[in-house]
């Protein structure tokens, strides 16, 4: 990322010192080869245990060295530094395969939400252990019956003497099986319109009545869970924000999600596998294949500049505007184009292989993964609605569900 370094060459002495500190610490402590299952957002549950232990150990060292939660407030365990410091750390860390993937949901979504909407007690209790990796967090918003209409959720929390009783099902939860805490939203008043009867809670994932089950994706892998809540007791102090005002808190979480999807990705040069593919198939002089690879390269580079622009605006503290949605939409185009190109270039050998052909299934797996890029983290249709309505100011469709009590709505495929 030489271009980004360029923009930071006029560093303050403080920043330069920080860079030096980060560089030295990483050199002495960071792993140089990846630990299986610790880099992605979610690990395969079957091989997760060792990976989680390794990740927690590393994160604790990082925290103890004063290199975790760089921009988070000092009073809760963060370092109180600027986003420029965070950027410097990311630059220095980029050569190392840090085993921090399982903390992304906590740091990118749950933490910021607790910091913005949580009570003083909650911040004191949860933020430091989260940063130290002692406690891992997940997010529990999606439900089978809601989908793109996140606020159409049906999980119920009924108030009791000392808190709430939670029942319902969540889905597409990353890492639920190794997480300690989760941010959950549930319906607390079905007589209100759907956005207004929702409340956010912190839920103990080890509490009685919580069951997690791996969800098998179409690739055959399991990167997500279903989570079932059966009469799970949530103590009163775990309420985040106000009762029936959880949708506002959820927006904070989701905005952070979009930014982190849009600005992520792009380590290494993503055209490299295709260049190698052409060479290995003897297609490096095939003009049609050359044109296709160059087409993909154009989109990949443009996506990279888009990501740099998004990061720059985050660094500058200006709102990234529509760029998160733009990057997500363009990213899913790239995913579709590149995955189809892979199997097409390889031909029959991409769709069937012998047992001893290492990695021969990669092109087919990419085709199977590709629809996920259009669905996960807000479908492409939803991104286009966001751009159309919030960015371009186009009028909303006639809304039939804004003001009706939730209990009168049809949701999911219920009848």
């Amino acid at each position, binding site marked *: 990322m030489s271009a980004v370094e360029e923009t930071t060459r006029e560093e303050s002495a403080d920043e330069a010192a920080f860079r030096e500190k980060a560089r030295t610490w990483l050199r002495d402590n960071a792993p140089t080869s990846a630990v299986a299952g610790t880099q992605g957002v979610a690990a395969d549950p079957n091989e997760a245990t060792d990976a989680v232990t390794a990740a927690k150990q590393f994160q604790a060292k990082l925290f103890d060295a004063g290199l975790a939660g760089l921009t988070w407030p000092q009073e809760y365990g963060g370092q109180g530094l600027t986003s420029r410091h965070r950027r410097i750390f990311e630059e220095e860390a980029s050569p190392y395969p840090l085993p921090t993937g399982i903390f992304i949901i906590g740091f990118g979504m749950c933490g910021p939400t607790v910091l913005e909407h949580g009570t003083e007690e909650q911040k004191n209790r949860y933020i430091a252990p989260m940063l130290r990796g002692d406690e891992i967090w997940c997010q529990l918003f999606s439900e089978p019956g809601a989908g793109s209409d996140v606020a*159409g959720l049906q999980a119920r929390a009924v108030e009791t003497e000392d808190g709430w009783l939670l029942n319902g099902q969540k889905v597409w939860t990353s890492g639920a099986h190794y997480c300690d805490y989760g941010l959950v939203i549930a319906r607390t008043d079905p007589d209100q319109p759907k956005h207004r009867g929702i409340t956010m809670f912190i839920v103990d994932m080890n509490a009685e009545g919580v069951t997690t089950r791996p969800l098998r994706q179409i690739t055959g892998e399991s990167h997500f869970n279903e989570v079932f809540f059966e009469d799970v007791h949530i103590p009163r102090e775990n309420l985040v924000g106000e009762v029936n005002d959880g949708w506002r808190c959820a927006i904070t979480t989701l905005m952070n999600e979009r930014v982190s999807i849009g600005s992520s990705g792009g380590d290494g040069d993503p055209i490299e596998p295709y260049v190698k593919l052409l060479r290995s198939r003897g297609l490096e002089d095939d003009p049609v294949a050359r044109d296709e690879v160059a087409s993909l390269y154009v989109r990949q580079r443009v996506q990279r500049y888009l990501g740099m622009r998004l990061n720059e605006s985050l660094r500058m503290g200006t709102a990234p505007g529509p760029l998160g949605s733009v990057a997500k939409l363009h990213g899913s185009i790239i995913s579709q184009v590149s995955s189809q190109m892979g199997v097409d270039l390889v031909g*029959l*050998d991409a769709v069937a292989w012998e047992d001893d052909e290492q990695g021969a299934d990669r092109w087919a797996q990419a085709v199977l993964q590709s629809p996920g890029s259009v669905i996960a983290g807000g479908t492409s*249709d939803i991104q*286009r609605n966001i751009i159309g309505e919030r960015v371009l100011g186009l009028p909303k469709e006639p809304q*039939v*569900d804004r003001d009706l009590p939730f209990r009168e709505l*049809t949701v999911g495929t219920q009848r």
Partner: protein
Amino acid sequence: MSRQIFTPSPEHEEFRTSVRRFAEANATSDIVRDLMERDDGYDAAVWSQMSQQLGLQGLHVPEEHGGSGFGFAELAIVFEELGRTLLPSPYLATAALGVNAILNAATPDQQARLLPRIATGEEIATLAYAEALDGTDGCTVEAKAADGGHVLSGHSRHVLDGANADLIVVPARVDGELGLFAVEGSASGLTRTPMRGVDLTRRQARIDLDGVAAERLGEGDAAAALRTTLDQAAVCLSAEMVGGAQVCLETAVQYSKDRYQFGRPIGSFQAVKHRCADMLVDVECARSAVLYAAWAVEERPEELDTVAPLTKAFASEAYVSCANKNIYVLGGIGYTWEHDAHLYLRRATASRALLGAPAQQRSRLAAQLLDA
């Protein structure tokens, strides 16, 4: 033969109904998922019923060889219906590749000897075509005369149902030309290694031949017979792809009527509605080409060289597109292993590559347009 190209006769509609009933009964999601975990990948009892109840294996085998003597209009109906269900069976290998190879290349005597066993469902047949896709250029198997017959040596990959086939037609080089040879599945010197693949409902295998005894089908260069066989099979596969794409469309449409978001069935949103409409455009365009192609195989054989590649190219793109769009419409549930949507994407992805991918088909068409 109906006088119409695109409009089915009442007899055709009736035939379609019985094939559909059979396929739906024998390829429920549970059955398909059970079979795709098994080593052999198909159900021999169902294969047998397919022949005994409906005579599908002998559908276009001449009556004198134990078949029904129908043609490609009827074959297209069968393939479309089988394509709807993903029924794992060696039908494409047997009916589209094996039978047609024999019909196109074998002598009357050979046909009389080989076809009846296939028509009755006793034998599974296939063709080892992958290396011969560009005429004879890629063919890696060599044949040598021996003992009044031939022996073959070499290997071939991506043989459809090659591990289960009782009869494998193998293209091989012989005396500077291309010959097609019948190899028994149980022949000594033949090693068959199942391959794994993205399509869990149709198997491929690698075959290695080490001095395997084989019978040459017909005489003289068989390159044209091979080409015709592959084109005819491409038409059959295209019909199958139309059936699969149609189910993806129906699944998406049904779900978008049943599923509510934002207080409305999602099919009332233009984004979803128009995606379904685009699927229908793909399906009906592909279907038009398939119906024309199935007619042309018999009535305009001189057009096959053009019609087959363009139909295969279009139907491949249409199926992959519909399989993907179905998953988009389904959303999260469509991305789970439990939903059958991915089985169609898997089938579409493999079928696109089989018998010549779109780019290969276009390259043939370009040669016809520009190198004449």
